[in-house]
């Protein structure tokens, strides 16, 4: 479970996050939505322990990210935007490296590497160098390395951008298959992804949460038939509120 309380982060005069609170439960796929510059990547980088907040609390499976980062990170898998990976490693070497850094023993690591290679459709390129992979394959390797240590919570920052429709389907299937055991927080601009596997959504605008909850509830409150409509209404309303 991921819990965030009153999180704030400023870049100079700009409030990237302003008092954000949210909870992502085990078994839920919570989508993080918002226009560019809403603070989504800042929020995910703070949850992953990559950025420090100015104030507030982040806890992953009961471990405080600021005071006990090693334990908190052990329970968390992160997929970053642009899928950063070590270009001088092969897919298997990258996965083995991640598994070892997360403290897995050799036998467990071997078993889990095999599992995530199958889960993310990487059998064909398991021994290939990462530098030679296509963008879509790198994104699947990125997901595999986030899952190899069997995290209890998973954070994904636009992981499916740039995937072709078939790769996108396979990516979402892989996520769906682990969602019962994991708390997933998924940032995206694609509302199609939300409707296919999402259980909850959080909408950020200018560093603040403007709507959150179950997807059914968000649609009802916005009196909308789909997420596209609900999202447009909520974001337009924010613009109107600010002008008033």
């Amino acid at each position: 479970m991921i819990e965030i309380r009153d999180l704030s982060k400023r870049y100079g005069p700009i409030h990237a996050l302003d008092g954000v609170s949210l909870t992502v439960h085990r078994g839920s796929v919570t989508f993080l939505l918002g226009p560019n510059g809403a603070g989504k990547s800042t929020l995910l980088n703070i949850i992953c322990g990559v950025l420090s907040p100015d104030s507030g609390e982040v806890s992953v499976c009961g471990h405080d990210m600021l005071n006990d980062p090693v334990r908190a990170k052990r329970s968390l898998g992160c997929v970053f935007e642009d899928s950063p990976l070590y270009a001088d490693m092969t897919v298997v070497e990258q996965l083995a490296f991640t598994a070892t850094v997360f403290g897995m023993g050799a036998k467990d690591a071997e078993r889990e590497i095999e599992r995530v290679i199958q889960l993310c459709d990487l059998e064909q390129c398991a021994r290939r160098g990462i530098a030679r992979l296509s963008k879509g394959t790198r994104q699947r390797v990125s997901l595999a390395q986030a899952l190899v240590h069997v995290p209890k919570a998973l954070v994904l920052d636009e992981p499916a951008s740039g995937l072709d429709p078939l790769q996108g389907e396979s990516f979402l299937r892989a996520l769906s298959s682990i969602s019962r055991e994991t708390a997933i927080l998924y940032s995206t601009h694609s509302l199609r992804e939300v409707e296919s596997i999402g259980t909850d959504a959080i909408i950020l605008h200018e560093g603040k949460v403007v709507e959150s909850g179950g997807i059914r509830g968000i649609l009802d409150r916005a009196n909308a038939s789909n997420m596209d409509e609900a999202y447009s209404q909520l974001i337009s309303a924010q613009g109107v509120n600010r002008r008033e």
Partner: protein
Amino acid sequence: MNNFRSTFAALLKKEIKHQFVSGSGTVSILFFTIVVSGAFFGGLINPGGGIFRGIVSLVPFVSSFVIPIASMSIWSVERKRGTERLLASYPVAPFFVTLAKFIALMVDWIAMLLLCAPIALMPGVAPEPGILFATFAYLILFGAAAMAFGQFLSGLFTNAIAAYLASAASMLLLTFSQLFMPLASVSDGVLSALARASFAWHLDSAARGVFDSGDVLFFALPAILFLLLDSWRFSSGRIHK
């Protein structure tokens, strides 16, 4: 404890492999060995103060170009490719990530020294074993200070060439600041401090067989300071791309 050992070993292995795959380690080791042995066998070392002292005084100058080659990409490539974020998300204390990088750089440095060590044992060069041992110890400390400094600077850039230029320029200044020594007697202020900050000045006392705790601190303290600064930079998350 076992988990920690294997985690640290994995980080270290990754860094050492990077040094050789990226070419930074290989090029710096070859460059250093060729230049130092070329200077010796080519008769370019002035034997005025003894050949051994000549070799030792050449090291800071050559290192000003070579150590930045080894250290320039240790962080800058991670920052450029975004893998610094990946490293920061791993369950490892930031100091151990920076320590693994530093040890990988020291592997390069020790390889450079060992490859040139036979020169010190040649007839007409070999000093007393005590001096030889002290000089080797000083050179390791000198390399530790220079590598930690280069590593810290590499973390401030996403461009490895910019990291190289900043590191080489700073090291050249610290090497040639010894030239201010004659002026230091006239004015005992900044010039004196600059002269005493010279790498070559502190290494020369080692080659003369003078073992001074001040010289040891001169090299050890910057090594520790820059490692801690590097770890702080990495953990503060202020410079992640």
